[in-house]
């Protein structure tokens, strides 16, 4: 299966006055083309930072380490010049942020915010760009699109605003769309509408989507692949089936137990005791060890290597290492 995006040994650090925050620590994964991949984890686990790194949006206190590589269709984008980045952003890869109210310029009408993107990348006149903008708004299900082009972000409802955000991202048909908690700020019913719309567009146009979320519930019937992150590390990755029916990592298991499910009646929802570690000073061993019910002495010695427990299903946990010990290199 061809991969549109390969992330290798990505590390991102933020140098602040209180110390260096290691937001993402040496992670690697691949994204299959024309599929929906969800990156799941608690807030602060590094999933948003990862998505920003893919967009080239890591800014000043943040630094991407030298060993990091991100390949988009085989090209190492971290070596891009500013000009190449500008060409890549929006055209090949787009992003949708969580809160459209703050993510849209409050003093510019929607029309100009959409057409700006078109006119930066394509040599078209104002009229053509405007027509394309209306078409995009119609595509994401905004009624009266032609009229709404002239309106400002504050004149839209939360759900409509997020649709505008998505319309802007989809303009110029990028091959990869990153949706960073696209529905978290919305009511549950509107959440479902927006996800359905995204699913439909993805199916029609055959686009690759990376869905970043903390909510496994919305992932279930949307994503084909799932990457689970914890404390700046990828702890498990596999197909949706693998993750939902054969979770391997204790953290994934715990996450699943915390999701309300209709198919399993009875029982109580569980919470995960404790809090994620301080990212300014992450533990040497498995970061989940302190909250893990299956903790063993070896867990504190180092971060476990990657073990392939089934085809395309990898996990980083000492439980799956030979004898629960060894070199720490699982392959």
């Amino acid at each position: 299966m061809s991969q549109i995006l390969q992330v290798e040994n990505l590390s991102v650090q933020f140098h602040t006055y209180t110390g260096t925050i290691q937001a993402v620590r040496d992670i690697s994964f691949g994204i299959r083309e024309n599929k929906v991949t969800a990156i799941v984890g608690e807030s602060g686990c590094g999933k948003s930072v990862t998505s920003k790194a893919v967009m080239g949006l890591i800014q000043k206190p943040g630094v991407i380490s030298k060993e990091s590589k991100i390949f988009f269709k085989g090209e190492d984008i971290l070596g891009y010049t500013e000009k190449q980045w500008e060409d890549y952003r929006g055209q090949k890869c787009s992003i949708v942020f969580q809160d459209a109210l703050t993510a849209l310029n409050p003093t510019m009408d929607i029309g100009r915010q959409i057409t700006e993107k078109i006119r930066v990348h394509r040599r078209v006149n104002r009229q053509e760009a405007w027509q394309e903008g209306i078409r995009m708004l119609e595509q994401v299900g905004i009624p009266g699109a032609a009229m709404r082009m002239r309106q400002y972000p504050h004149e839209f409802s939360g759900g409509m605003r997020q649709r505008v955000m998505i319309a802007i991202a989809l303009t110029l048909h990028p091959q990869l769309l990153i949706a960073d908690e696209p529905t978290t700020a919305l009511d549950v019913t509107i959440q479902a509408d927006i996800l359905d719309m995204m699913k439909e567009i993805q199916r029609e146009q055959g686009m690759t989507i990376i869905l970043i979320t903390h909510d496994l519930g919305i992932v279930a019937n949307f994503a084909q692949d799932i990457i689970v992150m914890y404390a700046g590390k990828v702890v498990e990755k596999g197909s949706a089936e693998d993750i939902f029916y054969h979770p391997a990592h204790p953290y994934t298991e715990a996450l699943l137990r915390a999701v309300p499910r209709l198919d399993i009646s009875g029982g109580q929802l569980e919470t995960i005791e404790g809090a994620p570690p301080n990212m300014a000073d992450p533990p040497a061993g498995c970061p989940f060890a302190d909250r893990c019910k299956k903790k063993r002495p070896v867990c504190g010695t180092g971060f476990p290597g990657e073990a392939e427990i089934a085809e395309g299903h990898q996990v980083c946990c000492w439980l799956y290492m030979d004898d629960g010990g060894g070199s720490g290199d699982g392959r």
Partner: protein
Amino acid sequence: MKDLIMKRLAQMAVVFVIVSMFAFSIIYFSPGDPLYLYTSPSVSTYKMSEEQLDDMRASLGLEGNVVQRYIDWAGKMLKGDWGLSISNHQPVKKQILDRLPNTIGLMGAALVLSVLLAIPLGLLAGYHKNKWIDNLISAVSYLGISLPAFWFGIMLIIVFSLKLGWLPSAGMRTIGVESALDVIRHGILPVIVLSVNNTAVFVRYIRSNTIEQKEEEYVMTVISKGVPRMQVLLRHVLKNCLLPIITIVGMNFGTLITGSFIVESVFGWPGLGTLCMDAINSRDYTMIMGITVLTCIVLLIGNFLADILYGFADPRIKQGKEAQNG
């Protein structure tokens, strides 16, 4: 938008009535007879007839009860009859209007200068937050807000007029010279002094605004669309940084007016400020009342324009929804 204008106009009217009452009370509560100068033979060499005095009293609003007098006086002011100056018997309105352009010119030049200076400096400081250039600009702006303007004026006179002899130290024209260039030469120092404080205030404001705007999430969105960095700055950040300047200019209008009064007395600039100081020193009530009322009109109009302009520039206000910062 219409609502906003109506609301502001109503507020202006209220403030104006209160200010006019204050101006009126200057005469009403001032100790002694304001016409003392004309009635006491020991003080005045110029003796008015009883008839003239009655006229004078009427024009000053010194007859009848307080309310009646105030209404009479206000009516006359509204009709444009601002009375005669007590000290030189010339119409107050004409004298004020003769001087007004000089003060407005001074204020306008200073305002333009401070905005032109403050925008690049503020943006530069905010964009390079905590770098040496920001520290330098911030330090200078601290000096600017703490500098006593009149003292700064004196220092400039010492250096540029007395020691170096480059620029004239006082007045607006060299006697006998009728050229715009001459006026400009006279105006350089006063305009600099008048603009220092405002420039510093604007710089600090624009700097903190730039820092705030740069970290707004929408900037991320714009960058993620593939917009070149320079265009991000010019089309998005700059506009949202500069919009609130309109408000801060309006808010500083009062300081600008009082500042111009002080600067005028330091440099002997023939504007409203010097006229006002002379009037106060000679207890010229009609003149003081006229200047007070006019100054407030200028200030209110300035504030009003700033509000309306901001309303037009910011779509969130134009549509009648107040900005969230309330």
